[in-house]
Every structure is written in C-alpha cells, then in structure tokens.
C-alpha cells in the first residue's frame, strides 16, 4: 500500500463520529455503490468493497485447517435462510474459535477497506441505530489502521507484533511504526485500541525525532515522562517501537524494564 492510500484510511477513520453508529458509504457519480464501512458505537464492524474479490468464508477456510468449504457453505446457507449471524453460528457450532473468527473478520475488513479507499467517489455518513454486532467482533480504529498498514508489509508487521506481544505487560500499551515510512501509522499495536490515532502518530513523530538525534551518540533507548505517562522508544532495524506505561511509579517501572531489555540492533 502506498502512503497516500494509507493516509486515506486514517482520514476515513477520523471521519467516523465518536461513539456513533452508522455507515460511511462511498457512492460513484453514476449512482452505483462502491462500498461502505459499517460502524457501531465508534467501532468498525465490517467493510465492503465492490472490487474486493475475497469472501470471509475463503479467509476462514485459509485460517482454520479443520474447516472445509463444504461445512462453511452449509452453515452459510442456513444462516442466510434463518437470518442468523454467520460468525457467531460458526463459533457456537465449534467450527471456528473466537480468536480465529476475530482475526479473519479483521483481515477481511482491512483488505476490503484497502480497496475501498482507492475508489474515486465521495464519502457520506448514514446514521443507524446500531447493528447488534458482538463487541468482540468489532474493531477499534487503531486495530483497523494497523491491520491495513500491515497489508503493505506483512512480514515486518508480524515481526513487530510478535516483539510487542513479548514486551507489553499488564497495564501497558505499545505500538510499532516503520521508520522509512512517510506516515507514522502503526504497523502493529497492543493495547492501543482506545488511544486516539492522532495521539499515536504524534508520539511516533516525537520518538522518531528524538531517536534521529540520539543515535548520533549511540543512544539505544529514549524514555520520556509526559504528565503521568511514561514512554519508551527504540529502533530495531527499520521498526520504531514505542512502549507506554501509566499509573504509580510508571517512569521507574518502565525504566527498569527497558534497562534490562535486549535491543536487536541491525
């Protein structure tokens, strides 16, 4: 994904009224619908694009080896006939686990959104009273943005996510950005679901500026205190990691953690 498309996703997510439910619809000049992004209480439920060829069922089969296309088509037909939610029904029948369904839905949403933002059509907001999606199966703007960003470089994103999962402790949050990327959109995040996207980008820019100077004197890690929030940042290869910690003695706790940490230098 090139930077303009990536930034367009950020702008789309910023268009979502906070805590609102509805759909951001993209309609072409000829009246045909290019696609839509469904939102419930400020969280993303689903994205669809007319040009996106992949179905959720394809992703589910790819994600879970034990699931066959025949099984899923059977359930799909039943859900269609009886107006039942496909995802929840698959989980209830033990055909897929909740984490697999969550992952598949996020992937489908991000891939569809990646197609949708490339359309040349205006966006409009249609308010809705709510779709009744299971909260576990909806996504924060930060999750969606990181998911879309990861499509451009899945290997780097997977590496960043694995590293973050190994570092982020209870009560902490962390995210990673690609250093060479023009935009500071998260490549991966853990615990940042509720954090404002602009705030994350600002933190990344600040961290990048500090590291750019600090590396001239062989600094590996920078820690800063912003009010009650402690923030540590460091670079490994082309990834800039940011770890956030708040609460009592946040700075001291984070300092002790990162001082004992091994940095993987290029």
């Amino acid at each position: 994904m090139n930077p303009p498309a990536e930034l367009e996703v950020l702008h789309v997510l910023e268009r979502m009224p906070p805590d609102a439910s509805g759909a951001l619809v993209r309609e072409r000049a000829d009246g045909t619908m290019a696609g839509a992004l469904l939102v419930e209480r400020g969280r993303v439920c689903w994205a669809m694009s007319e040009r996106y060829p992949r179905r959720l069922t394809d992703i589910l089969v790819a994600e879970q080896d034990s699931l066959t296309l025949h099984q899923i088509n059977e359930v799909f037909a039943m859900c269609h006939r009886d107006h039942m939610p496909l995802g929840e029904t698959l989980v209830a029948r033990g055909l897929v686990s909740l984490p697999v369904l969550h992952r598949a839905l996020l992937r489908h949403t991000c891939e569809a959104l990646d197609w949708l933002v490339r359309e040349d059509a205006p966006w409009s907001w249609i308010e809705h009273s709510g779709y009744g999606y299971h909260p576990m199966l909806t996504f924060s703007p930060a999750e969606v943005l990181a998911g879309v960003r990861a499509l451009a470089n899945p290997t780097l994103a997977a590496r960043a996510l694995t590293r973050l999962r190994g570092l982020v402790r209870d009560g902490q949050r962390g995210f990673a950005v690609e250093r060479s990327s023009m935009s500071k959109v998260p490549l991966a995040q853990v615990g940042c679901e509720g954090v404002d996207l602009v705030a994350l980008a600002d933190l990344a820019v600040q961290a990048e500026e500090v590291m750019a100077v600090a590396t001239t004197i062989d600094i590996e890690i920078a820690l800063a205190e912003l009010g009650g929030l402690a923030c540590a940042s460091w670079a490994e290869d082309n990834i800039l990691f940011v770890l956030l910690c708040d609460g009592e003695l946040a700075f001291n706790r984070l300092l002790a953690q990162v001082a004992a940490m091994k940095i993987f230098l290029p």
Partner: protein
Amino acid sequence: MTRLIEIADAVPDCVVAAWVDTRTGAVREQHVVHDASFVGPALEAATEVMRSRERPPRMVLLSARHVHMFHRMVSDPHRVLVVICERSANIGLAVALVRSFAEAEAAAA
C-alpha cells in the same frame, strides 16, 4: 557551579553535570568528572533533543555504556540540566537523584 559539583558527587559514576541553553546551544555551566571524548557531542545532542518545546520536560536516554538524564526547568524552559553517568545496575538511583536535584532547583528558582 557548587550545585553541579554536588549532583556530580552524589550520582554514582557521574561523567558530567551541566546546564545547557537550548535556545543558543551554549553550555552555561558544566562540571566534568571524567573528560571523555564523547562529552562535547553528548551535550550538543542533549541541546538538540530538548530544543523543541514540544519535548517532554524530563527524558532519560540509555546507550550501552551511559545514562543521559535531561530536565527542563519550568521557570526557564530554555535551561536544561544534563547529567551523564556510567551505565550500571544503579540506573534507578541515578535517575532519582537527578530528579530530586532538578526539583530542588525548580523550587529554589
């Protein structure tokens, strides 16, 4: 100068304690304990890092061998205390000492 000697004496393995001016880039005062070659560039880097007013008032930078501690004075945002010490198991102590010193300076200002 007396106060810089005090903090340099208190912080374990202190290399340098200094006041830098982020507006001019000048070192206002310094007390060098070990005259290492990296002290000059490190103070320049400290000034550069803290030059932006958007930067948090308190920062700690870790290299493989040293700990660099920066505190911006509330009363004079261009005035930044820089203390650099050897990196040891006592990082927490060094950071706490420098913080107390900076808070005492701020209170006295």
